[in-house]
């Protein structure tokens, strides 16, 4: 096995080199942190980044990802192991449901993007959300639906860092979105619960119920891969069809029942 060991050696050298550079950089004087001159947003958006004195380049992060911790040890984390026990706690579940609700206009809406995104690089989403990733204290959930090419078509960032500050029209909106439908039903104690939401755009159960899901929503048995083998979708929710209900009274003479007013 000559080739793999070579790769190992090269890899190890790489790690050593990175560590050395990190160490040398770390020895630098703790200089006052660089202060953006025109607000936090503009340094990544302006044409020319403000020059930083070499002395000030002390390994601190700059640019759009500066909020991320960038040490090797903590950059990429891991979720709970597949076989870890998942305790059920109603409080945690309520918190998880509330957290979900806070990121959606209504149950079933595409969630907002809770972090800034580059104005155009819309395909890089899959770097983290393709399989799901733990980065520092943040969890990037795995996408719950099939892949599409144009992520920002449906998901809008919660706040876009447009330059020049917000001066747009702000009007209150009294819309109240539909809540999560609640928990699935069980035929008997210990029976697998039904799926309490539509599966449209939520085909991938592990997105929320896998090991990287919010505690409180996680499955106690994430190693099982064929979820709908045991958990049935809800017909009431899944088959909500526009042509099922009786037509409204104003549907007219031929389109629905005639009104007898």
């Amino acid at each position: 096995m000559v080739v793999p060991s070579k790769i190992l050696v090269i890899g190890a050298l790489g790690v050593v080199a990175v560590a050395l550079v990190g160490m040398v950089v770390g020895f630098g004087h703790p200089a006052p942190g660089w202060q953006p001159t025109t607000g936090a947003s503009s340094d990544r958006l302006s044409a020319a980044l403000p020059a930083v004195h070499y002395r000030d380049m002390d390994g601190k992060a700059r640019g759009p990802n500066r909020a991320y911790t960038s040490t090797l040890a903590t950059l990429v984390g891991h979720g709970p192991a597949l076989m870890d026990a998942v305790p059920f706690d109603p409080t945690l579940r309520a918190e998880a449901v509330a957290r979900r609700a806070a990121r959606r206009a209504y149950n079933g809406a595409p969630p907002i993007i809770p972090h800034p995104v580059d104005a155009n690089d819309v395909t890089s989403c899959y770097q983290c959300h393709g399989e799901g990733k733990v980065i520092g204290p943040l969890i990037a959930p795995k996408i719950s639906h099939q892949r599409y090419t144009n992520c920002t078509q449906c998901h809008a960032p919660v706040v876009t860092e447009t330059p020049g500050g917000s001066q747009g029209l702000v009007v209150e909106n009294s819309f109240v979105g539909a809540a999560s439908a609640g928990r699935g039903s069980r035929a008997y104690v210990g029976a697998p619960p039904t799926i309490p939401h539509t599966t449209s755009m939520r085909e991938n159960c592990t997105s929320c119920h896998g090991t990287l899901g919010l505690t409180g929503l996680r499955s106690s048995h994430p190693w099982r891969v064929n979820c709908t083998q045991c958990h049935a979708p809800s017909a009431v929710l899944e088959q909500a069809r526009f042509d099922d209900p009786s037509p409204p009274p104003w549907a007219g003479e031929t389109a629905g029942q005639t009104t007898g007013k």
Partner: protein
Amino acid sequence: MNDLDRRAFLKTSAMAAAAAMILPHLGSAAEGDAQAGDGIRWDKAPCRFCGTGCGVLLGAKDGKIVAMQADKEASVNKGLCCVKGYHVGLILYGQDRLTVPQKRVDGKLVPISWEEAIAIIRDRISAAPAKFAMYGSGQWTIPEGYAANKFVKGGLGHNHIDPNARLCMASAAAGFNATYGVDEPAGCYDDLDHCTVLIDWGNNPAEMHPVLFSRVMDRRLKGDKVLYIDLTTRRTRSSEQADHVAFFKPNTDLAVANGIAHLLVKAGFLDKPWVDKFFRLRQRVAEYAPDPTKRDVYDAEAIHPKNLIGKDITREEYVKNLEFYTPEKVEEISGVPASLIRLMAEKMADPNERVLSWWCMGPNQHTRGTAMNSLLHSIHHLSGQWGKPGASAFSLTGQPSACGTAREVGTFSHLLPGHLPVLNPHYREVTEELWHLPKGRISDKIGFHTVKMWEEFCTDGGAIDTIWVQVTNPGQTLPHQNKLFLAKKERKGKFLIVSDVYPTATTALADLVLPSAMYVEKNGMYGNAERKQQQWFKMVEPPGQARPDAWQVLAVSKAMFDAGFPGMKDKDGEWIFAKTLKKADGSLIPAWDFAHYYDVNVDERLFEEYRPFTKIKHKDLAPYAVYAKAHGLRWPVVEKTPGNWEETLWRFVEGKDPYVKPGTGLQFYHSNTKDDKAFIWWHPYEAAPEEPDAEYPFWLCTGRVLEHWHSGTMTMRVPPLQRSMPHAYIEIHPDDAIALHVRSGDKVTVESRRGSLTLPAWIKGRGQPPKGSCFVPFFDERLQINLVTKDYHDPFSKQPDFKKCAVRLRKA
């Protein structure tokens, strides 16, 4: 925690706090109980926003819309929406909805009753009917537009009614008419599933038609090969996914199309069998008025339908005309590399490829819009990239019913229902017959087009002194605002009536404001860009005293009839809408009284009255009841067997279009030359009427962004959309920014010969214009770029060119 971490933490906290501030309005109600179902009643509607026409299911509970989902059975979007569509229900719930009629008294709007409002309009119109004009919309539902059209053309006996679609679709319609003798695309969205080459002509579908864009792009994820060529005036989100991106100098798209035609001719395509069999070579009859500021000369062009239809030219003339447009010459003119022009020509020449061209406002908002639209059809005709699934030239639309209501219902000032030209005496007679009107009621004069209408309104002593605006926001969307809208402030005796749902830049100058019911607060029907009609039922009640636009028109018409206005009588002396609203027993349903408006489905009554018009130009629509059950149908919809209504995916193609005779292959049965042939046009490239010069050295281009729709009246009131794109900005090239000493976020003043605007710069933002040009979106009512744009328009379509003008920039 070091500085940076702390700052990052603070920033994250600030974002979380910001989110917490917004989210109570977003957040859902308390969790329900899945076992009982969620109690939501779902019903279908097309999306309220663009011309794509996505199917949406809206969920109502306790009288409010609480959820949405994409309609999986809608052929347009197949279960996917865009972020606007997913939040479409929120547009009903902005806190400043207009809920009572208001009249301006001493500069302030004060509430009045509906009775008083209707009486004011009645008296105002009756006093000077010829000086009244109606300004409508491609967002009118089909029945609303039909009622307004009949009210003006049948009731007032003149044609001063025009929709805002004049600003967006008129050139496309003129291009179709010039080429095929009949309006609207032959292809449909299914072409997106079959094309192997896709060419953007000055559009940004990733943001403006995202659902259609991903319908193509997602095919690549499944292994399909689609070569995507983006011809654009700035780098956009669409460019990010393109195989080839080329920036062309504004207005030079005609040169690019001619460059492709040049190469096709060189490759012998004039000898292809289809060219002689199905097409004629054409060019314009005369030179157009070279100076679009000379409005009288310019407007006269449309009076000469001959010029729209052009004249035959020989093969030799056609070849000679194209001689000039070598790839190298075109590169010199347009900036599109000769190699790319060769590549596009090669792809179009390859019978194994299926080439689809699509465009939207680029070729439409163009002083040579009709010509450019015609050229796009022509290069597809010449190359044979036409009439096969995936091989087509497709014109996208911007409004949900620009096709359905503006073009098909004929709410343009030169049309009657069914897209019948008013200049044709036969069609006037047909309309009088169908409307049961005395002969000669319908005027033989084309009414004022949008720009002219507002120009007259904003001129002392102008021919128009009252305008009733419905479902649109001209105070933000007309070009050259100072001249065409804001000038109203200084004019005496002008009266502006506005039916709308929110306060807008237009209501700001209105003398009478009427609160309208919107979207699923009323029954409705829209017609999208691929000839598809989609119907919906009222799902929730409108707020306060808001009422449907169609009711408003009926009420005014009835009030005028009751007051003895002769035009509101049909030839039997009955009210012009009496036949529309009669019961089987002959009694009249008093739908003008709002308490009785929903006694019947007024939409269905109006629609069924409109249907016979649609058959005249083979735009056949099915009965209302069929649409109530369908997820939309593309016309012509023909009853193949009793009760079995079939839609048409591809027009003029044998086996696809029921009106094409067997054995013909292709049959253009509305041909301008009455020989079943369509045209291959030649038009020259001409410079734009205003190009950058020493005084105004920059190109300005305007457009939209993904999150907002048109003037933002609705989307700016949807928190997730508003937060995501809170205000307008100006995109500038980095080199220009350096020269101007401008950084992102700095205020820049953009100034043209017509007006100026100061707004923040965004460098390397969402779009990246090439050096020497800038871009501003038009959605922000506080930062109105239409103060700067110009009102020059295409000679045939009368569509103004919002897309380009010369400006200068300075740091504010």
